[in-house]
């Protein structure tokens, strides 16, 4: 096997093997498990670095394994997969650190970290998948790997959350399977191609293609939490904080959005999709989701559900960017994949810190918390302002490109959606900041951790600081080489290459 085929497989194996080994560790072997976790995440980080360097040098990486007659498992690295794979690798690393600190004294850690690693394996598989079949396999694996994580606490709430999650995602997965098989039977191999596999295929019935598009979008839309397929997401808040963080920033929700991106750009081709007339309905659904999620977020007093509804809204920015024809909007959608991930994971880390350190679960309990947890709340503030779209934080860059792309495509009403969404984001995030920084503390919190050198356990504090700093830097230095924006520009260039 050549190096170019081995590297994608090694990247997968770095978390798969770790995960499988961890399952068999005794609960007490904390040190070994920690070493395994961190070295798995670290090795993956290095391997992805090598992969990026190789692609930058013009190498192509592709692994093809025969799966069934006529069906291959394909892993390859194009610009889009690199963006997603590096996002998930970096965020996996910080989340691993966070999870080790978070679960320090809780039971079933081997089970947790085993599935945690599998979950990342699935996400990386989704990122590297070179055809729709491979994508589907890892997508289903993701469902199965996240289910035990959701129910990790074993409470009635979390079991219910797991059940609802499974119902939604399996149903979505079934529709997706039908769509993929149908398309495969019509169009042959479904290897992702920039500008699309189906573009220029005049032999296929457009109506059939529209139906298949609908099946695929609904299948992916469940995980991407497009309204009305979003019902599972707010309920899944019963999961532990690191799981919620990963779920909302990279793993599940992103996998759905990424799937939609793949379908539109690399299966149908964006211009062909537009000619089928399927993008406008998608843009409308995404816009509705953006506004709906924000409105619902307004009325949540519990912090995590407020963040969950915010995710529903923000992930649809990615889908909206996909649904607007034109390179500028494409850049906005794709770059938001990274930007939303960084900002949202920060918010969930911070929510976890509030809960773990002071037992705070509700917005109304956050009065004056900025003085007790200043660093955590600085990270939260940066991420929340970024979500609103305040420059120079990364979220602004996404909104800028989405807005400019909307005008390029002559869809000024989308600007109104963006404006409404920004205002609503401000309406549900700024009161939190106001409470934390400007209101005096009311009553005592339950201090849950031993007082230490930092405001909370350092493993809980560092991850949000790192991700918040990245969210700020990626916006402030958006125009630098190697920034997510630069990658997104490269991807957009290739999608519209004629």
């Amino acid at each position, binding site marked *: 096997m050549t190096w170019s085929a081995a590297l994608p497989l090694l990247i997968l194996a770095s978390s798969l093997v770790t995960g499988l080994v961890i399952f068999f560790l005794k609960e007490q072997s904390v040190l070994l498990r920690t070493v395994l976790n961190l070295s798995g995440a670290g090795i993956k980080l290095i391997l992805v670095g090598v992969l990026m360097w190789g692609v930058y040098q013009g190498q192509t990486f592709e692994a093809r394994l025969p799966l069934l007659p006529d069906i291959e498992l394909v892993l390859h690295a194009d610009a889009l997969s690199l963006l997603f794979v590096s996002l998930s690798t970096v965020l996996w690393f910080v989340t691993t650190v966070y999870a080790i600190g978070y679960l320090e004294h809780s039971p079933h850690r081997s089970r947790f970290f085993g599935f945690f690693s599998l979950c990342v394996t699935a996400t990386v598989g989704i990122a590297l998948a070179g055809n729709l079949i491979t994508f589907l396999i890892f997508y289903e694996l993701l469902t199965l790997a996240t289910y035990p994580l959701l129910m990790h606490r074993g409470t009635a709430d979390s079991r219910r959350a797991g059940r609802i999650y499974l119902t939604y995602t399996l149903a979505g997965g079934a529709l997706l399977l039908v769509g993929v098989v149908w398309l495969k039977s019509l169009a042959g191999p479904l290897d992702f191609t920039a500008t699309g596999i189906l573009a220029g295929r005049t032999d296929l019935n457009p109506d059939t293609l529209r139906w298949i598009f609908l099946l695929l979008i609904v299948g992916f839309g469940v995980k991407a939490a497009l309204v009305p397929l979003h019902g599972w997401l707010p309920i899944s808040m019963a999961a532990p904080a690191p799981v919620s963080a990963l779920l909302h920033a990279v793993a599940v929700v992103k996998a759905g959005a990424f799937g939609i991106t793949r379908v539109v750009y690399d299966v149908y081709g964006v211009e062909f999709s537009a000619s089928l007339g399927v993008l406008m309905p998608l843009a409308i659904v995404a816009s509705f989701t953006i506004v709906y999620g924000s409105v619902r977020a307004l009325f949540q007093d519990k912090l995590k559900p407020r963040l969950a509804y915010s995710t529903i809204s923000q992930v649809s920015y990615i889908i909206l960017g996909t649904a607007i024809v034109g390179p500028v909007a494409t850049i906005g959608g794709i770059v938001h994949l990274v930007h939303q991930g960084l900002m949202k994971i920060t918010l969930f880390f911070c929510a976890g810190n509030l809960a773990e350190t002071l037992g705070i679960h509700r917005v109304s309990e956050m009065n004056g918390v900025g003085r007790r947890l200043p660093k955590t709340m600085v990270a939260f503030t940066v991420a929340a302002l970024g979500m609103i779209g305040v420059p120079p934080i990364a979220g602004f860059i996404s909104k800028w490109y989405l807005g400019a792309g909307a005008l390029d495509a002559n869809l000024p009403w989308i600007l109104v959606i963006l*404006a409404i969404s920004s205002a609503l984001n401000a309406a549900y995030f*700024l009161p939190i900041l106001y409470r934390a*920084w400007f209101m005096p503390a009311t009553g005592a919190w339950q201090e849950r951790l031993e007082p230490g050198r930092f405001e909370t356990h350092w493993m809980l504090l560092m991850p949000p600081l790192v991700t918040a700093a990245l969210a700020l830097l990626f916006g402030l*230095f958006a125009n630098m080489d190697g920034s997510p924006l630069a990658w997104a520009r490269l991807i957009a260039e290739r999608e519209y290459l004629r």
Partner: protein
Amino acid sequence: MATVDLPRLMLLMVLILPWLMLSLTAVARFAPWLRRALVMAPAIGLVLAFLPPAGQFEMPGLLLGSRFGVDGVNRVFLVVTALAWLAASVLAASYLLAAARPRRFLTCFVLAMGGNFALVLSQDAVSFFTGFAVMSLAAYGLVNHRGDTASTYAGRVYIVLAIAGEVLLFAALIGLVHSAGQIQFPLDFDAPPPDWAIACAVLGFGVKAGMLPLQMSIPLSYGAAPLAGGVALAGAMLNAGLLGWLRWLPLGSVEASAWGLIFTGAGLLGAAWGVVQGVRQSSPTALLGYSSISQVGLMMLFIGAGFLAPDQWPLFLPLLGYFVLHHACAKTALFCASSGQVPAVGPRWLWWAVFSLPGLALIGVPLSSGYLAKAGLLEVVTAPGVGLATLAPWLTLATAGTTVLMARWLYLVIYAPQPGTPPAPAPWVALVLVVLVAVGPLVAMLFGVAVPATQGGLSAAG
């Protein structure tokens, strides 16, 4: 990259120092040092404004490719921004000694200052918007620092309007840049930009500048903020709204009589309304807020004229620049004197005579900066092609209004000290600031930073 000469180095320092200080606020033991170092960035900025403009400084990796520099439009704004922040920094240094939550105030103060300098010096719309947003949001911490009922209310009104303004400006930014096809200033419009984008920019910056009917937050926030914050709000941040109009609107390239009339109408309305409401105030700083609304109303007449007679805009712009300089200097000085304390040496009436100088300037008594500024305004409204000559007599009325306002202000600071007045800085500091600021326009004139009036070029033709 161009060589780093002195003006460029200073430019860089003005831009970066506030952020450097922001990062140092995290370390408690730097606090006393930081308090005294606040004046550094504004002091350097002030010197920079008096050096010959040094061209643009490009930072291609920043945001979407940023440029900063001093040019004919922002030079005056740099003077007033630096001067106001200098005064605010001096006041803040003493305020922070006794204030509750000093670190929060310091953080917001430095953030607002950094954003303000970034927007003034920016040579592209994205950097401008970024600085503007940072400044606007951080200023909330200045408005609602005390946390009592009044300042909480002022803060709420402020932030709701600020966010509405930001959202409008975001839409305006996208629309105007899309139409211009570039982010660099001056935005070059081949075809008139869409009216909705202009409207968004007018309203979005109008919130900051105190344009009617978006002026609600101005007097509230001036009254609620500690004096150090109020000086910055009134002397520096208000002008950011004006500069925004000058930078973003298609002035001088597009004839748009509808926008010209809207600016003129809203301006006149503001000029009158500020006086009517201002005299009813019992807080001297809130009164100054209404005075600002009134003065901005007058400044809007320049912009209205620019829309009505775009070919003459290059002549109007320096006159407006001088008006901005005059007003901001006078307003900064008035704010500094609003604590109601005078040095304990010599007769009090003498001090009050000195402290009323900026008020006299604002009224526009002969030999003052206000006299020259109003002469410029008169030239603009009577210029040919503008068609506003009928307004000329009404400007006298505006002067009368300002006189009443300033008399009321003097009465309030002398006889009716506010119970909620924050701990005042040393009166000597106020005095130095008043004098410095009163001579500011004169010095600026001597250095050629601002031109008070054309040599009769406009009126001769009229």
